[in-house]
């Protein structure tokens, strides 16, 4: 059966997409909603939820103690909390962080630039490193460089993100390089596999046999046909970069969203955790959607 695939406009061209966009957007919204509800329920039912160290403060009056207790009342039922939270979010209020004593909107505005800067530079560094090591290995077939890069990426993959952060911190390295080093082994291995597949295709072998120089060979016949996988890898690396940022910002005391996530988790700050969960789920899913939108179109053009 020959089914007509739906099409959409992207970058001025008509693209074929695997699933209609509204359905994909609905799926993304449902995933983010479920993620937020799950985090709210998890924190709510954790042992010791609602206890506040202020309750131990003997200087507070009885009324103040009761007020402290009442401050958690609206969070007791996670469903009610979540519904009320969404109502406030739709009105433009993200809530208030009790552990950091500041509105969440302000916290996000203050901390997002640091994380954005860190992850973007880190991702850029990781991509540059992965390209620098994998392209000559695949195109020029340099065996020594292949062995060296395998050892380097293997060593980076064998250390935890927090361990890499400590190591580079002690050596005076930048936090951006920490993210780059955490992402590098994953990107390098995948990139090398993708490029190896592309460079083994018959038309590449023919171009090589005809004596085509390696620069046009790389751009026209290796990287360009592999762009669908590369776009998908960019989407995946956004998620990986934020995961690494959590550990690195916590270790290096960088006031970003990763550190906020760690602080909110250890303080069981429910409103902050829900906001971060929904936000991260949305960013990841949206980047995957953009990659999905590009991928089938790229394949159909290749």
């Amino acid at each position, binding site marked *: 059966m020959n089914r007509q695939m739906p099409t959409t406009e992207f970058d001025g061209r008509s693209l074929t997409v695997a699933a209609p966009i509204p359905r994909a957007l609905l799926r993304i919204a449902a995933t983010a909603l479920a993620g937020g509800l799950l985090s709210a329920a*998890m924190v709510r039912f954790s042992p010791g939820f609602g206890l506040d160290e202020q309750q131990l403060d003997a200087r507070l009056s009885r009324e103040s103690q009761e007020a402290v207790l009442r401050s958690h009342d609206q969070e007791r039922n996670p469903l009610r909390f979540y519904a009320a939270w969404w109502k406030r979010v739709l009105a433009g209020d993200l809530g208030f962080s009790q552990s950091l004593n500041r509105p969440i909107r302000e916290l996000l505005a203050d901390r997002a630039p640091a994380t954005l800067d860190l992850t973007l530079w880190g991702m850029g560094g990781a991509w540059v490193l992965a390209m620098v090591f994998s392209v000559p290995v695949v195109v020029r077939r340099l065996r020594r460089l292949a062995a060296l890069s395998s050892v380097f990426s293997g060593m980076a993959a*064998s250390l935890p993100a927090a*361990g890499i952060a*400590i190591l580079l911190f002690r050596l005076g390295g930048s936090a951006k390089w920490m993210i780059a080093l955490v992402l590098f082994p994953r990107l390098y291995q995948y990139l090398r596999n993708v490029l190896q597949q592309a460079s083994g295709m018959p038309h590449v072998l023919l171009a090589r046999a005809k004596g085509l120089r390696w620069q046009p060979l790389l751009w026209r016949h290796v990287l360009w046909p592999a762009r669908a996988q590369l776009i998908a890898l960019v989407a995946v690396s956004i998620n990986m970069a934020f995961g690494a940022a959590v*550990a690195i910002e916590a270790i290096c005391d960088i006031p970003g969203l990763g550190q906020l996530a760690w602080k909110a*988790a250890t303080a069981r700050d429910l409103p902050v955790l829900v906001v971060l969960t929904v936000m991260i789920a949305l960013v990841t899913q949206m980047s995957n959607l953009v990659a999905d939108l590009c991928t089938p179109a790229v394949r159909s053009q290749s």
Partner: protein
Amino acid sequence: MKAIRNLAGTLLLFLLLAALYPSVLTRAPYDRQFRELPDAPVSRQFPLGTDELGRDRLSRLLYGTRVSLLAAPAAALLSTILAALVGGLAGFLGGWFDRAAVAAIDLMLSLPWLFLLIMVRATLPLNLPALVSALVTFGLIGLLGWAPAARIVRAGCRTLRCSDLVVQARACGIRDGRVLVKHVLPNVRPILAAQFRASIPIYILAEANLGLLGLGVADPLPSWGNLLRPLESGLAPDWAAWAPLILMLVVVSCFYLTQPSEVVVR
């Protein structure tokens, strides 16, 4: 390559034996405090020195290795079983269960794993007894690590659902449950074995990350995560304090070298 794989396997075996029988290399128990010798330098009695509480670093390193090398495979087994259950049923049954499983997998994969681990671990009590905290930490890693494997198992089972052997088994009147257990799951066993092997080093690193952030195994039970914590403090550590990181590098590299080179992106 085969020689390197054999060498890595032998080294792993040697380290496992050293971790299981630490008394061969050191006499001191991991929690004994030599109070007159805090922060002792490397010596014949203490080959890696002592920590700030006067505990033998070598002994703690070997016991920490035991915790990681035994608990990480257990966590990997737990997540593989969960992946087989969820992915197997979703791929084989299809319908609403498949859609629900895909949604759950999407949700799990849309959150960075470390963020998810930190969030869930922080919701549980932190002042647990040491052994319980180790069980909770690795149990949690196993419980939250099923999603990537489940997606691959689901794809394998979906392919098998339409295969000749399953159609024939159904035509013979065999019930769905039996078809799944007897014909489908045995055929995805290589996928499950590969996922199990690939998960072990990832879980070792996850515990180390949690431990470094203060959410891992509790003192006095050593683990690679909490042994690395002194490196995070402002004081300049001596070279022996880096031993857990170096050992972790060696062990995880050996795990990667003993398995086929596949990328597990998390």
